[in-house]
């Protein structure tokens, strides 16, 4: 065991854990007052639910002995054979428990990301069951495919910290959910204005902070690669922030704070698959692209008419896809992309993108149907109008 790497990855795990409350705030500020707690809860409760599902079965399906490149076995179920030493650890330098908990934090935030799509109109009971199934049947396979010895990683797809596993998967799920759940009541007639933008800015700040653990930690060691991933992450995010507000400024006449926060997240998303494979200047290009492309991405929902409440598809889907493809273009560290003469890498990336979208979309739709049949996914109209805080949780956010 390498104590330095252990220290580094434990701290990184804490940072990634902190992203989920950060996401809760990021999303929570964007909804209306009457749904703030429900939206916070969709993220916060996953720190509980997803962690336990991960310990019980998810980790094992992801990193247990590979079956045909498709799924892991049950060897690590209930954290069996996962100890404080390096035995069985997928990362030989790290205690197995350290590797497991770092990955756990990814399994927590990924389903939380989806919740932006169905915000303000989902039953809490349905949400809990759906998410449990989703971690088992969508997240764990995806994670296995890419990082657990599955076919996508074997094919040579590059995904440093989760462009496919985290962002495209959640965005594909978000799209399915948004379509199947239908639009929020009043959509198109009432103004759905963020109720607390400072909360969203704080959330974005926490996300940025925690994302250093996400991306630099994905080096799984405190080496030069971690330093590189740290820097590319920061620079792409900075660039995404700037290019989004520049696009707004040119397009609508004003740079907005929500645009700055959104652009930063777009940059973070886009650099995620690339962080360890590109150098800082290409990272800036990826970030600049992310800001503009995702600004376009959020317009898609108006075009296609689904109600992706908090733009999961527009930011994580479009940004993650852009990042995955850009990795195939700009990769030059420990891998070689198009510009380094390997067009093939771009093709591999393309295949992984398509496979991810298709698999996650279809599986999510199936799970959604099942849970909808079991307990119902959408609250009654009256419950939705009163707000989910009161109707689902018997609470209200503020008494100011």
């Amino acid at each position: 065991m390498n104590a330095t790497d252990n220290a580094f990855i434990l701290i990184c795990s804490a940072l990634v854990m902190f992203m989920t409350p950060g996401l809760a705030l990021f999303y929570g500020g964007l909804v209306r007052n009457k749904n703030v707690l429900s939206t916070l809860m969709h993220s916060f409760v996953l720190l509980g639910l997803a962690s336990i599902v991960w310990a019980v079965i998810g980790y094992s399906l992801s990193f247990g002995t590979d079956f045909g490149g498709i799924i892991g076995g049950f060897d690590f179920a209930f954290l069996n054979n996962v100890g404080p030493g390096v035995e069985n650890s997928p990362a030989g330098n790290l205690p197995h428990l350290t590797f497991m908990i770092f990955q756990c934090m990814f399994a927590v935030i990924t389903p939380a990301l989806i919740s932006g799509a169905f915000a303000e109109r989902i039953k809490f009971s349905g949400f809990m069951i759906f998410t449990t199934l989703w971690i088992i049947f969508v997240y764990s396979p995806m994670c296995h495919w890419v990082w657990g010895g599955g076919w996508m990683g074997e094919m040579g797809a590059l995904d440093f910290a989760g462009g496919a596993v985290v962002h495209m998967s959640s965005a594909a799920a978000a799209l399915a959910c948004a379509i199947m759940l239908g639009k929020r009541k009043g959509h198109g007639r009432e103004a759905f204005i963020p109720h607390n933008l400072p909360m969203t800015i704080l959330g974005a700040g926490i996300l940025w902070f925690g994302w250093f653990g996400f991306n630099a930690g994905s080096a799984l060691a405190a080496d030069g690669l971690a330093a590189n991933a740290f820097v590319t992450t920061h620079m792409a995010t900075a660039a995404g922030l700037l290019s989004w507000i520049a696009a707004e400024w040119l397009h609508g006449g004003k740079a907005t704070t929500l645009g700055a926060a959104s652009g930063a997240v777009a940059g973070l998303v886009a650099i995620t698959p690339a962080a360890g494979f590109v150098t800082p200047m290409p990272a800036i290009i990826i970030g600049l692209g992310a800001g503009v492309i995702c600004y376009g991405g959020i317009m898609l929902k108006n075009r296609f008419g689904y109600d992706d409440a908090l733009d999961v598809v527009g930011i994580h889907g479009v940004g993650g896809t852009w990042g995955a493809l850009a990795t195939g273009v700009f990769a030059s560290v420990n891998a070689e992309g198009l510009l380094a003469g390997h067009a093939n890498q771009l093709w591999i990336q393309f295949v992984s993108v398509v496979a991810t979208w298709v698999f996650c979309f279809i599986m999510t739709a199936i799970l959604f149907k099942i849970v909808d049949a079991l307990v119902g996914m959408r609250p009654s109209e009256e419950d939705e109008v009163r707000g989910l805080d009161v109707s689902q949780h018997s609470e209200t956010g503020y008494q100011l």
Partner: protein
Amino acid sequence: MKKIEVITRTFKLDDVKIALTDLGVKGMTVTEVKGFGRQGGHKEVYRGAEYQVDFVPKIKIELVVEDERVAELVDAVRDAAFTGNVGDGKIFVSPMDEVVRIRTGETGDEAI
């Protein structure tokens, strides 16, 4: 002159505003209020302690109008705010002696 006071659902604000401006109303004042009525409230629970909340968020729209416009405007508001469910609210009409526009010093119907 009369004051028309409308107490209704918050999400009806825009509809009522449009109905009124369509009829040429130039000004109104809106307040966020909490209403108690037949509609009933809801229960809240904090660490096991239950509280009955009887008040529902509503908005109050106030506008001062010429006497002769009252009937027409009340009708327009009713149409715009109507959903048919308990909690649609009330329209109150009360007398108004005088109006002054601060900017110009105009008074009476001129000042509205």
